[in-house]
């Protein structure tokens, strides 16, 4: 018995998920990763008998294939991470949530600093109960003459989310950066159990507030698939428009922030404003700059008329013209290029090993984009061309964003000019019982994956969220190796990862 093939957004009866021996499970995953598959989700779920079942979902981007497999590990199993680094954070998460030990994991530390979901089963007995404090653990240690550590956070200098960064330096040079998160942990996955609840959509909208549309869309598609329905075509088009607006605002803001971090103020200043202009377009749709209330199971909460469509298109033209003017200054300015090029390089091999996703992966030559590889429900993204570069540095991550801005704008123009007629929302029934569905969306940071599994009553027995940041934080740590510590803000901004999306 091996993994079961799975289609994106097609529910599979839970009984058809093959449960392998731990040995076969491990072998199947490692062989698949060797063949170019990626781990898109790898998580535990509690069973009625207090045991834990592991489920892994693998994706092959080039052919748009998915497969799923499961195993019962008992209280411990031989870790995958030593031979498959992309399993690293997943196995730490499994250890922390379920108290199952991945034996031989090279980096086995808490991920978010919370108690076990299985009382009495803990991997770190010394860090249980009252003793759990964020970042209280053993950090990586570097020794030698002239070695020093710099600790930053959780409270940072700017208006950003909390996290702890520990730099091991020799002089100005960073030998290693260890990132310790969990400060934003709000217990989202625990709250999702037994859902959908009245608050579930609000948890989705605030999983990572700058990705409201991305997570809400991924969730709604999952529950629609489980209910055997599909949002009306007009709703799907409006979701796609708002998803690209979310990308435009964030990519524009990121390019401005990158300019700010190298002291190039014209672009920083322009983009700070222009980011808001895109947010205002989302607010034109639904009253909220972040798209709150827009995406709902069964469709969208707001429709547009011809007047609003015209105003949106006009605003898009004006804003995109200004963005082009602001961003092109970057490429023409030698002082900017000098700071962006060959800074924070992530090699193609490293991007594959760590399972990076989104613009960070595409900047390191990884040709992957959910919009092309795992299209959701319609032809919106037909002939989608992937924005890809190969240098893997800050410059590449900036240029990928600029390419994506242009393609997203063109996409919105096309979509709004040709909106399907009809309703924007329909009744979405309850989820089917004992089913598993995988829902994926290319959010602006990269691949968002939700795996929903229902129990006998059609309620969530497990709802697993994988924000793109979950994969990519390790990419940032690797990008810093060998850099000067003063390049950290620039490298950090070039990834711009989510703390709350990681911490859940």
């Amino acid at each position, binding site marked *: 018995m091996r993994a079961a093939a799975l289609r994106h957004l097609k529910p599979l009866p839970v009984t058809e998920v093959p449960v392998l021996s731990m040995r076969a499970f491990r072998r199947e995953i490692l062989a698949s990763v060797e063949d170019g598959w990626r781990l898109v989700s790898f998580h535990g779920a509690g069973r009625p008998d207090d045991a834990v079942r592991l489920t892994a979902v693998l994706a092959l981007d080039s052919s748009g294939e998915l497969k799923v497999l499961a195993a019962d590990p008992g209280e411990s199993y031989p870790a995958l991470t030593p031979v498959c680094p992309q399993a690293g954070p997943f196995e730490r998460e499994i250890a922390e949530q379920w108290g199952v030990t991945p034996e031989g994991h090279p980096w086995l530390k808490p991920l*978010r*600093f*919370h108690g076990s979901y299985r009382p009495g089963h803990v991997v770190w007995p010394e860090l249980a109960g009252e003793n759990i*404090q*964020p970042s209280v653990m053993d950090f990586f240690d570097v020794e030698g003459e002239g070695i020093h550590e710099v600790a930053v956070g*959780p*409270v940072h*200098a*700017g*208006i*950003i*989310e*909390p996290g702890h960064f520990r730099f091991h330096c020799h002089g100005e040079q960073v030998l290693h950066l260890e990132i310790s998160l969990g*400060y*934003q*942990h*709000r*217990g989202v996955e*625990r*709250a999702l159990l037994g859902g959908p609840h*009245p*608050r579930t*959509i*609000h*948890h989705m*909208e*605030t*999983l*990572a*507030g*700058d990705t*409201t549309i991305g997570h809400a869309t991924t969730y709604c598609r999952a529950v629609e698939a489980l209910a055997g329905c599909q949002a009306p075509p007009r709703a799907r088009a409006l979701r796609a428009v708002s998803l690209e607006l979310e990308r435009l605002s964030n990519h524009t803001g990121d390019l401005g922030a990158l300019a700010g971090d190298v002291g190039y103020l*014209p672009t920083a*200043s*322009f983009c*700070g*404003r222009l*980011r*808001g202009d895109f947010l*205002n377009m989302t*607010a*034109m*749709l*639904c*009253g*909220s*700059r*972040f798209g*709150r*209330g827009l995406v709902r199971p069964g469709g969208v*909460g*707001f429709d547009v008329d011809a007047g609003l469509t015209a105003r949106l298109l006009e605003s898009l033209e004006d804003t995109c013209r*200004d963005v082009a*003017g*602001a961003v092109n*200054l970057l490429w023409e*300015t030698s002082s900017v290029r000098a700071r962006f090029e060959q800074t924070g390089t992530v090699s193609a091999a490293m991007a594959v090993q760590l399972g990076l996703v989104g613009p960070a992966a595409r900047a390191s030559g990884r040709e992957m984009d959910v919009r092309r590889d795992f299209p959701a429900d319609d032809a919106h993204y037909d002939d989608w061309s992937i924005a890809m570069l190969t240098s893997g540095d800050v410059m590449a991550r900036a240029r990928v964003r600029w390419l994506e801005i242009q393609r997203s704008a063109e996409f919105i123009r096309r979509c709004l000019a040709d909106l399907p007629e009809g309703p924007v929302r329909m009744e979405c029934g309850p989820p089917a019982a004992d089913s598993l569905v995988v829902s994926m969306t290319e959010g602006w940071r990269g691949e968002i994956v939700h795996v929903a599994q229902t129990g006998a009553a059609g309620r969530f027995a497990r709802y697993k969220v994988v924000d793109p940041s979950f994969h990519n934080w390790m990419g940032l740590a690797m990008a810093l190796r060998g850099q000067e510590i003063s390049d950290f803000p620039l490298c950090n901004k070039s990834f711009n990862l*989510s*703390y*709350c999306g990681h911490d859940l």
Partner: protein
Amino acid sequence: MIRALLERIRQCHRTVVYPAGPPVLPERLRGRPVVTPGACPEGCVECVAACPVGAITRPDGRVHVDLGRCLFCGDCAAACPHGALRFTRDHRLAARTRDDLRTVGGEGPLARALEGRMLSLFGRSLKLRQVCAGGCNACEADTNVLTTVVFDLSRFGIKFVASPRHADGLLVTGPVTGNMALALKKTYDALPDPRLVIAVGACAISGGPYAGHAEARDGADAVVPVDLYIPGCPPHPITILDGLLRLLDRLPAERL
């Protein structure tokens, strides 16, 4: 260099007219909710049932709306069969006490200005340290946006600074996760007296969608004393600015 100057000329001056003129707000903005008096039949609790966070109650026949809990999602208005509850475009929501946000029918007192020594100290210069304690980055982003050329916060003497040692107050977002409670307290303790705390967003006021979670503390005032509450999920930047300017007595009379 010349291109940067030309682009600057082309993109012009873009700071909003507000507060000298009225704010420009989205047409579909869900601002202050109002309940039409007398429009609710006895016993109707559709809005109460529709609210995902328990912001609406009807203990005495009247509809009570807790603006500190409200996510401004609009589910209550959609559920109201009598058209009694609706969201206006009124962006003014900030209040000085938690109780002022517990309104009857959406109506409650707006934030009063600081008085006496506090006003003379901070009225023309307020330096804030922002602490995100479980916020989803929406309140943070729409606070940060106040520092762009659009809102140009520094024209009011308000600035965000990098250290609590340089700050007169904290602006807190998020429900205050258990993992951030100590850091928030330590940051507050590092501020010199006298000091202010401003809670921005439903999470920081009541826990928002995370109210009641064991992993969080239901808002900033569980850890630090709060002087100004700014509701929303997230509040529109103009709502945040309105709150700050009210506190510092900087709003022109026609904007009050």
